[in-house]
């Protein structure tokens, strides 16, 4: 059994799926983030002034990019894997000799690919509004890669448990989006009262956004090492949990 071929098959299928429906997958984040940059960055940002010695526009760019990466990595896997379950063509994979880890790697890689593609689109749009030269491009790319991996895995788990289309929109709408907005995309946590600063530190997305911001503009509210430890820890836990679910056949086998 050639697992590489099986992996490439799943990955290619996923990439073809979201590029085929680009008006649903790639165009909306371009429009939404243009509006963010225009309204929050250009119009309101001019009145806010500087945060951590950078313009408000420069301050929000990393968070807006990473927020798009998070939501699209997650959305790609949750919608694709749930549709696969819903239309029952998951059976093609279950019958075949593809190991569970290859199934997981294929879907998660598809989510990462979409996250990175959307991130690139948003980053390109941001250049229309500001001229950011990355402080540490390697670090920024690594953070994006880790973050998209983490949320692609989370999307996979959501899809495994989901038993309706409502169930795949609950977590993005009621957990992911609030945590992203409260993760310091549009503000620095240092601006919050002390109690809210402490509460914010419980939000894992805060660490990722700040690590990415550090890579792009050299500014962060959190310890970068801690950001890597938290993100890596979540990735490892979610990989093992996903493989456990696949092994047990939760949500996909009778």
């Amino acid at each position, binding site marked *: 059994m050639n697992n590489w071929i099986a992996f490439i098959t799943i990955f290619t299928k996923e990439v073809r799926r979201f590029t085929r429906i680009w008006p649903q997958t790639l165009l909306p984040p371009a429009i939404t983030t243009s509006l963010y940059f225009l309204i929050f960055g250009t119009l309101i940002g001019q009145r806010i002034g500087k945060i951590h010695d950078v313009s408000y526009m420069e301050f929000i760019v990393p968070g807006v990019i990473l927020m798009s990466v998070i939501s699209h990595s997650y959305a790609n896997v949750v919608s694709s894997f749930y549709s696969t379950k819903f239309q029952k063509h998951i059976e*093609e994979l*279950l*019958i075949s*000799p593809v190991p569970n880890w290859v199934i997981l790697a294929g879907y998660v890689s598809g989510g990462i690919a979409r996250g990175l593609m959307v991130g690139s689109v948003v980053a390109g749009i941001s250049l229309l509004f500001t001229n950011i030269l990355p402080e540490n491009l390697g670090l920024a790319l690594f953070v994006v890669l880790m973050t998209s991996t983490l949320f692609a895995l989370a999307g996979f788990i959501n899809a495994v448990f989901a038993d309706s289309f409502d169930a795949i929109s609950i977590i993005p709408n009621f957990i992911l989006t609030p945590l992203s907005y409260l993760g310091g995309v549009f503000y620095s946590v240092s601006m919050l009262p002390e109690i809210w600063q402490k509460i914010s530190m419980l939000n894992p997305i805060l660490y990722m956004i700040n690590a990415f911001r550090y890579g792009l503009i050299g500014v962060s509210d959190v310890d970068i090492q801690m950001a890597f430890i938290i993100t890596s820890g979540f990735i490892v836990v979610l990989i093992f949990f996903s493989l456990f679910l696949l092994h047990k056949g939760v949500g996909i*086998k009778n």
Partner: protein
Amino acid sequence: MKALSIRNLQKTYKGGVHALKGIDLDVEEGDFFALLGPNGAGKSTTIGIVCSLVTKTKGTVKIFDADLDKNRELAKSYIGLVPQEINFNQFETVQDILLNQAGYYGIPRKQARKNAEKCLRQMQLWDKRNTVSRRLSGGMKRRVMIARALVHSPRLLILDEPTAGVDIEIRRSMWQLMREVNAEGTTIILTTHYLEEAENLCRNIAIINHGRIVENSRMSSLLARLNVDYFVMDLAHPIKEVPEIPGFSIELEGDSLLNVAVPKEQGLNRLFQELTKRDLQVLSLKNKSNRLEQLFLDLIDKDQPQSA
């Protein structure tokens, strides 16, 4: 070699339904095997377990000697499944469905294209290779599922009601395709509700009921057990009274149709002699029910649980 060997297979669903109560089943390599049973008997559960779609509670399954628990990937590589329901991605083209399936079995893309072409030509779908699958007719979708199941050249092909809901013309052409696939050496297990289909295609048969195998034998020896054949005769002229012929049970339907039960020891020749003596002319004759259908019903009736 045994294509499939099942021992003490048990399945209890979460709600407590005991779907399989310890099934033993062997299917020889090269066989065309029928697995029959009424709805809810355990056929689909058995197939689901063999194809890794259902988790078993207990027992062992070996496919060409590869244990599904101990040598999972090898065992799975031998199987091709044509399921009851359409389950391919209806937004993909016919060819992509086959190429993806080949990819899941680790077949390189160049070889996969050759296999896909062979299967699509065999199923008379080559002209439709670039058609998005949801635009195909029902019969074509069924053939896509067979082509998909064959693209990795499985040694064991499982057909779970492959002709359900298709018209008679397509069904007959699918029978021919199945015969060809079997003649090429692929072992086939067929479940169907069309008992005529099983009788025509299969050499061996198992009947499952209430989660147990109630019959497992050669098709010919099973059919040989049938003692009575039921015929419908169309008479040339209407009659008013049912002819009484000793040894035969006869009913009159309308005024020119006779339903006749013919015991094997009496035979049709004697029946016709007796009818001729009574000046009754028969225009046409047909089997009232399929022979296997009668046996099937008898076996299932015998296996009904005793009421308190």
